[in-house]
Structures are given as structure tokens and as C-alpha cells.
């Protein structure tokens, strides 16, 4: 019983207690790869930017989950900052795309 408890409460069996956490990290990484594929093949620049934005959010998740798994110090501040930078970066690039050319969408409005 005590052995089983130790496995559940974490600490002793690294793989046993953290199996779900590792599964989640692998899922996040698979999603990152899928987003990267979309960024590489994406036919339009907007597809690529969407994939990059999604990739950034997954990076935040990866930092948060991986930092907890590896017991990094103050990893959450990094994740928080990355979330902010990701958002501001997306908005900046999209403003750039939006007003780069006198788009015909403008005259339609």
C-alpha cells in the first residue's frame, strides 16, 4: 500500500507518476509538428502566420508543462512572457499584412 501510494504521489517512480504529464507534453509536441507542417506548406501567408501563432501558444504550454516536469525555477514567468510576446508579435505582423498594399478589400468597404 505504501509503495502504491508513493507511486501515485510522485517522487519515486519518475515515469509512473508523470506518465500523464509526459503524454500531454508529447501531444503538445505532435501538435507543434503539425502546425509546422502547415506553416511550411501553407499556401498563403495568412496560413503561415496562423500556424506560427498556434505554434507560439503550444510553446507556452510546452514551457509550462516541461518546466514542471524538469522542476525548472521560475519557468512560469518565461511562459507568461512568451504568451505576451506571441500575442503582440501576431498583431504586429497582421497589421503589417493588412496595410502593406492598398488592398482591393479597402475599396469594397
Amino acid at each position: 500500500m505504501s509503495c502504491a501510494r508513493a507511486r501515485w504521489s510522485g517522487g519515486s517512480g519518475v515515469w509512473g507518476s508523470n506518465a500523464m504529464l509526459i503524454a500531454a507534453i508529447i501531444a503538445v509536441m505532435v501538435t507543434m509538428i503539425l502546425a509546422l507542417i502547415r506553416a511550411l506548406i501553407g499556401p498563403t501567408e495568412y496560413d503561415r502566420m496562423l500556424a506560427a501563432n498556434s505554434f507560439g501558444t503550444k510553446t507556452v504550454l510546452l514551457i509550462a508543462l516541461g518546466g514542471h516536469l524538469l522542476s525548472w525555477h521560475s519557468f512560469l514567468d518565461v511562459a507568461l512572457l512568451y504568451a505576451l510576446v506571441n500575442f503582440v508579435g501576431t498583431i504586429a505582423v497582421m497589421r503589417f499584412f493588412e496595410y502593406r498594399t492598398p488592398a482591393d478589400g479597402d475599396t469594397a468597404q
Partner: protein
Amino acid sequence: MSPWVEILSGFCFLAGGFLCVTGGVGMLRLPDFFARVHASGLTETLATPLLLVGLMLQMEWSLELFKVVLIALLVLATNPTATHAMAKAALHGGRRPVTGGPAAAAQEDTSSKA
């Protein structure tokens, strides 16, 4: 940590990871940019909070928990804005959503109005 908290956190991790991969698959499978935006939203609106809640359940009670909540709130609050900015930029760039099904005819007159 009680086993129940551990199981709950494991469930959150599994569900969040599954939704995450679903969004990634959707981003590859869906036909055009405007449809892929929805898949991206799928990975951010529910998968992110689920994974972060799972993480919170595993952490000890400290100020760090507040930061996890803050990350989740930040992602949830910025996601619609970023999505809307991308969709609007694509519209300004002359892209029009590919529409299918019975609504394709109705789309014609709304796009001329917009």
C-alpha cells in the same frame, strides 16, 4: 496529493492533449484559411485551460498557481483578438472564404454588401 487529484489531473492532461492534437489535425485537414482559424481556436480555447488546470492540480499551493491562472486567462483573452486580426487581415488582403453547401448562394449578395 490524494490519488483522486492525481486521476483528475491525468484526465485533464489526456483530454487537453487529445484536443490539442485534434486542432493540429484540423489545421492540416480543413480546406481553407478561414476554416483553419477554427481549428487553431480549438487548440487554444479548451485544450490550453485543460492542460493548465491539470498542471495546477499537480503543483503545490503557492503563488505560482496564480501565474498559471494568469497564463490561461491571457491566452483566452488574447486568442479572439489575434484570430480576428488574422481574419480581418486576410479579408483586406483580398482573400474570401470558400463556402460550401446550401449557403453558397446567399453568400454572394452579402459579400457584395460587405
